[in-house]
């Protein structure tokens, strides 16, 4: 059956391929598409077409698909044979069978044996596993089976075929009584018999099974007793000789500790946390000592034999058990003194601790008054230690602990009170901060802020960042207030500066905002004053210190900086708008000049106000104001009531003058009272002035207008300043300055514009554009092109689909027509046949009639 098929398929192939080759060479079959232009390098697929071939291909395809569909139209079911290769005519049937078998095996293997470890497949015979059969595990069964089989077969054969003597004899003996019975009865008997036997066999089987099981169990119970040692001993005997060096090595290597984990580097957050915990611990300790809770005889705590001595003590199970009372969830309040578990307490508890501390302080204060006399000297000693790191005290406390009397306990209490608290809550408002810092020395205030910063490090809790951010503003306010004191507490401010600096490093934005608002407000109020009163007073010492802090915290050399640019503007505004009416204002102006010089010392930027102001200050020292060779600008006037502020009254005071730094607080109030002191102050101011001028000349030396900038100062120094009355240091300075400022302006090249890059010529090289798709495509941008291409493609596809549909309908119409034609032909043929038979009938009948007639 397979053979002819195979033959046909082969010859089919041959025919087809040969036909194809023929067709290709047949000029009548080939259609050549004419090309308009020959484009070099373009490969065209469609230059030669085989319309006949493609048409027949399409026709065949339709036959396979469309026609079938058409035939199946309006029919409910269709049978699809999914067996492998069922419709493949080319395949030989043997191949098909083999393939199918293989696939089935694959199939089963894939599905069932996925997790089968022994990868052998089970071979079967009549649906039963061959392996099972070979093992003969179920001896009883197999026996019975074989017996049964043998029995059955013997009987059946006997009954069926009736052969053999024994059996025959038996038969003959039975025959007499069986004779009466019919065949029907015999068969029934036989069946009954076999059934009975079967039942018997079954019960027997069950019994043996039970027995076997019983035996098994008994064996097992005995086995435990017997086989306890024997197998192991045997194993050991086997193992021992096997231990060789190699194995030992391997095992050792396995147990050897690999790379020792090094101590982890701590992140800043961890460091901050540890620091806070340390402080909290110290604070708790201090509080405890302050309250006098010292356990006199520290009993050695019970140490269990299992103790690893690693400090881990599970002293009590502090896990709360969930319990209910009267149907409510019973939350036990934590008991125990706060001192012990401070270390574990979270951020929020800091406040409580602080309050506790305050109370404690109050208490001990109360107690202190009573026995103040007794311990005053001790207390002082301890006070000095109080600032120390605390650990030292802990040690000392531990040392004296063993001989504590009541007095000593009190002493410790005092020490603890004098000590600074270790944890601080971040103040919520300025008044809180002030209250926190008041009454402490400068260094202590510094420590307080340091500790407060550590306790509220932003990495410790969520709200801390906002809290600390506010601290910058508060601190500045505090500094401002210190500066307004009389006399200003400048040393305290000085010690606070590093704290302010570190806060600003933590929160640059917040610091910037605070500074900006300070400067903005000051500038605004000054401007308003100028507008309303026509003049403004010099800013106070606090503002000067703010400006100073701003220049310390932020880089002044930036081209534009959100803080230092306003600071510069503010300094400029002050130096041009504020009236110079007293020595204090002179001093404030001089501070600002110093700041300005310091700020521009890196960037060497030009500050006209600075030069104007220095000129003005020097002008104040000139005794006669008749000259018009130089102009002084705004806050200074050529003549006027305060235009001789710096004139040295007594020439003799120059002799007693020694260079001394001016106090910053002079901007607040000049302390000099006597004429000589005042003269000394003036000389100091003039010295500073001249020094600043010297620095300025060094800074601005490179400017093209250098000479013009310093010309007025030069004139003033050279001709008008009464140098002869001044000490030699001043004269020296003046001489140096005059040397650096040239009398004649230096020479410069005339200005020309910066050279521009020449504009490149227009390039005439062709522009190479990658062509992705041929054909006419409009659109300029990539998106547009893509759109056009898609449109084009869609159009093409649409047309193709339309064509296909048309061809389909034509094909269908053709099939329908051929169907009808075929049916008609059939009918015609049948009719013809009928007619033919009728005609023969008629002919026969006529012949018969003719014959009859004859």
């Amino acid at each position: 059956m397979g053979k002819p098929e195979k033959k046909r398929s082969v010859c089919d192939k041959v025919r087809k391929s040969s036909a194809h080759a023929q067709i290709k060479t047949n000029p009548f079959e080939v259609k050549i598409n004419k090309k308009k232009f020959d484009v070099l390098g373009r490969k065209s697929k469609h230059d030669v077409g085989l319309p006949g071939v493609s048409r027949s291909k399409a026709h065949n395809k339709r036959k396979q698909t469309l026609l079938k569909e058409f035939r199946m139209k309006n029919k409910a079911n269709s049978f699809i044979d999914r067996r492998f290769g069922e419709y493949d005519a080319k395949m030989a049937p043997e191949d098909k069978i083999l393939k199918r078998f293989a696939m089935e095996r694959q199939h089963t293997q894939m599905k069932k044996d996925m997790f089968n470890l022994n990868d052998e497949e089970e071979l079967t015979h009549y649906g039963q596993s061959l392996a099972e059969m070979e093992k003969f595990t179920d001896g009883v069964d197999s026996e019975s089976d074989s017996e049964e089989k043998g029995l059955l077969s013997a009987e059946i054969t006997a009954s069926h075929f009736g052969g053999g003597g024994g059996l025959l004899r038996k038969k003959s003996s039975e025959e007499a009584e069986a004779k009466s019975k019919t065949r029907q009865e015999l068969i029934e008997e036989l069946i009954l018999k076999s059934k009975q036997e079967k039942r018997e066999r079954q019960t027997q089987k069950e019994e043996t099974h039970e027995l076997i099981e019983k035996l098994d169990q008994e064996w097992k119970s005995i086995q435990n007793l017997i086989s306890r040692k024997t197998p192991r001993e045997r194993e050991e005997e086997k193992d021992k000789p096997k231990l060789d060096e190699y194995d030992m090595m391997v095992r050792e290597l396995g147990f050897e500790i690999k790379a020792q984990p090094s101590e982890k580097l701590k992140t800043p957050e961890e460091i901050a946390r540890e620091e806070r915990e340390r402080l909290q611990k110290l604070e708790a300790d201090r509080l405890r000592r302050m309250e006098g809770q010292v356990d006199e005889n520290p009993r050695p705590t019970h140490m269990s034999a299992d103790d690893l001595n690693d400090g881990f003590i599970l002293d009590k199970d502090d896990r709360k058990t969930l319990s209910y009372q009267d149907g409510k969830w019973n939350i036990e309040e934590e008991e125990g003194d706060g001192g012990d578990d401070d270390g574990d307490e979270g951020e929020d508890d800091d406040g409580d601790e602080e309050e506790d501390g305050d109370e404690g302080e109050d208490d001990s204060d109360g107690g202190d008054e009573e026995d103040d006399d007794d311990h005053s000297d001790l207390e002082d000693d301890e006070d000095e230690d109080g600032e120390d790191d605390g650990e030292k005290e802990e040690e000392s406390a531990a040392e004296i602990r063993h001989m504590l009397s009541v007095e000593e306990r009190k002493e410790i209490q005092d020490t603890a009170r004098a000590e600074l608290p270790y944890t601080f809550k971040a103040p919520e408002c300025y008044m809180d901060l002030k209250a926190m810092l008041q009454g402490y020395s400068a260094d202590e205030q510094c420590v307080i802020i340091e500790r407060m910063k550590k306790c509220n490090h932003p990495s410790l809790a969520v709200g801390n960042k906002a809290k600390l951010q506010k601290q910058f503003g508060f601190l500045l306010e505090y500094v401002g207030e210190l500066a307004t004191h009389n006399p200003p507490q400048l040393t305290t401010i000085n010690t606070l500066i590093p704290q302010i600096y570190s806060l600003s490093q933590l929160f640059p934005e917040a610091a910037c905002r605070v500074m900006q608002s300070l400067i903005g407000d000051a500038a605004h109020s000054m401007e308003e004053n100028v507008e309303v009163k026509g003049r403004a007073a010099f800013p106070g010492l606090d503002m000067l210190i703010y400006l100073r802090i701003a220049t310390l915290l932020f880089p002044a050399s930036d081209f534009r900086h959100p803080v230092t640019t306003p600071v510069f503007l503010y300094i400029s505004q002050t130096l041009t708008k504020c009236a110079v009416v007293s020595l204090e204002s002179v001093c404030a102006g001089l501070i600002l000049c110093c700041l300005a010089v310091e700020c521009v010392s890196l960037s060497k930027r030009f500050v006209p106000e600075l030069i104007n102001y220095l000129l003005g200050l020097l002008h104040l020292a000139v005794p006669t104001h008749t000259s018009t060779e130089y102009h002084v600008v705004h806050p200074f006037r050529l003549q006027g009531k305060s235009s001789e502020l710096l004139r040295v009254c007594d020439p003799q005071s120059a002799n007693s003058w020694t260079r001394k730094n001016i106090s910053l607080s002079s901007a607040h109030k000049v302390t000099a009272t006597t004429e000589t002191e005042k003269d000394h102050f003036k000389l100091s101011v003039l010295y500073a002035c001249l020094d600043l001028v010297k620095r300025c000349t060094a800074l601005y030396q490179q400017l093209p207008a250098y000479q013009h900038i310093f010309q007025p100062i030069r004139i003033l120094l050279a001709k008008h300043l009464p140098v002869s009355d001044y000490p030699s240091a001043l004269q020296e300075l003046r001489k140096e300055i005059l040397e650096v400022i040239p009398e004649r302006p230096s020479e410069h090249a005339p200005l020309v514009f910066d050279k521009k890059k020449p504009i490149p010529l227009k390039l005439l090289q062709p522009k190479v554009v990658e062509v992705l798709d041929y054909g006419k495509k409009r659109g300029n941008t990539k998106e547009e092109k893509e759109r056009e291409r898609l449109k084009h493609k869609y159009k093409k596809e649409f047309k193709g689909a339309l064509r296909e549909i048309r061809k389909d309908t034509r094909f269908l119409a053709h099939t329908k027509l051929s169907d009808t034609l075929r049916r008609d032909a059939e009918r015609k043929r049948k009719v013809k046949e009928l007619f033919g038979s009728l005609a023969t009938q008629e002919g026969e009948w006529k012949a018969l009639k003719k014959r009859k007639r004859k």
Partner: protein
Amino acid sequence: MCTLNLGVLRFSLTARYTGNMAPSKKPNVSKSDTEKSQTSPKQTISAKTELILQSRKHANNIFDLLEYLQSEKEKEVVCAINACQRLFCELLERGELYVGQLPKEEELLQGAWNADEKYHMFIRHRYNSCIELLLENIGHESYQVKESSLCAVMKFAAAEGKHPLQKQDWSQHYSFPKELISRLVWALLSEKQDMALLISRFQEFLEMDDVRYYVMNSARDNMHRVMERNKRAEMSVYQTNVFTLLTNITVPSQNSEITNFLVKQEAKYEDWKVAKLKEHKRAFELMWLTFLKYKLPMSMYKKVLVILHDSILPHMSDPTLMIDFLTAAYDVGGAISLLALNGLFVLIHEHNLEYTDFYKKLYNLMDPSIFHVKYRARFFHLANIFLSSSHLPVYLIAAFIKRLSRLALTAPPTGLLIVLPFICNLIRRHPSCRVLIHRPSADGEMCSDPYVLEEEDPAQCHALESSLWEIKSLQNHFHPDVSKAAKAINQALPEREDDISELLELSTFELMERDLKNQSQSVPLEFDSVTGLLQSPREVLGLHFSLE
């Protein structure tokens, strides 16, 4: 009491006539004093007013009222003023005041007048003394008193206007209480007291055209007399008062606006001087010229110049009359010259004033103070206009540019932000000035600045041979905006001019706000750690100052 008075009517009338010779009426006052002890002065005053108005026989109560006008107590005075105002207005309306030439009180007895006439004359005399007292009260310490006195006088003026006290037998005469207004002006322009508040109250009345006209006339008269009397010396209080009054006077811009009168004139309205804008302008002009004729204090000078161009010059009938004043002011120098510029500009621009050496003077006006004075914006605005002409010679423009840039070396940032675009604009307008910032011919050749700052003549200062090295220096200015503006000269200037009008009023705080508002930028920090207030890597402050 009423019946008793009826009984003594004859007596009281005679007493009135006889008693008038000796004005003090002690018994009456003492009587009123006793009455006052029982009732409050306010009630007494109103009761007396009622009595006087009721019948003539109580006319002597007027003396009491006048007495109250001089009282110590402010409240009483105010009450009395109100009462007098009511009383005399009423009487004027009734026509009970004598009309015509009033004989002296001494003549009153001798004269042959009937009783009615005598009564009218009596009332008229009291009216005059009342006005005298009121004008005195204008110099009172209390503003309340001043104000009500002023109002009362103005009420009288209105009433007099309606019922003239002069005989109007010839038609040319227009009824207006000129005399009264003139006396009021005299009182207002006190030589001792600053009347600014009262004068600003008076402005309400100055809106009436006839009042204003006569006030202007009488003010001029007053100034003449006072200044001549004081030998043309400066009188700051008086002149301040005059200035306040003068600045409160604004002349309407059109004839049709003159409709608001205190006294309506029925006859010959068209011929009335007051109704003519031209007359108003002339009066205004004369008034100001008189004021400016005398020496003014410096501050007053400035104040006048500030308002001159927009509130005086447009209202004058012939603004060119101001030329003398303005040129004199322009020659003074300093801030005053700056201010005079504005007036001069109006004259040059609108009235064809030919001013020789105007630019030379303008050039010399520029000194370092222009960046620091209050009128900086105004000055640069005008300078911008003056120098916008394209017909100016190049040397002049170059001189201005060079001078401004030299002065810029001492200017504050706000001034620099004006002057740098200003200079750039000048160079744009006059392309031949481009050599100042671009001189490629003498490439690399070193030369010192040939410009002479001290030279007063712009033609001689060699500005054109120079270059703007000052602006080059300002490119290193500390403020980023200034530095950027100065860098504009490094390239060829773009065609479009910078608009400096927005920069003119820029204040330091506004400049600062640009940086303060811009929150988006990051905040770089100083990396050198800080150890103390005075310590810093570039130590300057610490060298000269100490903490103690």
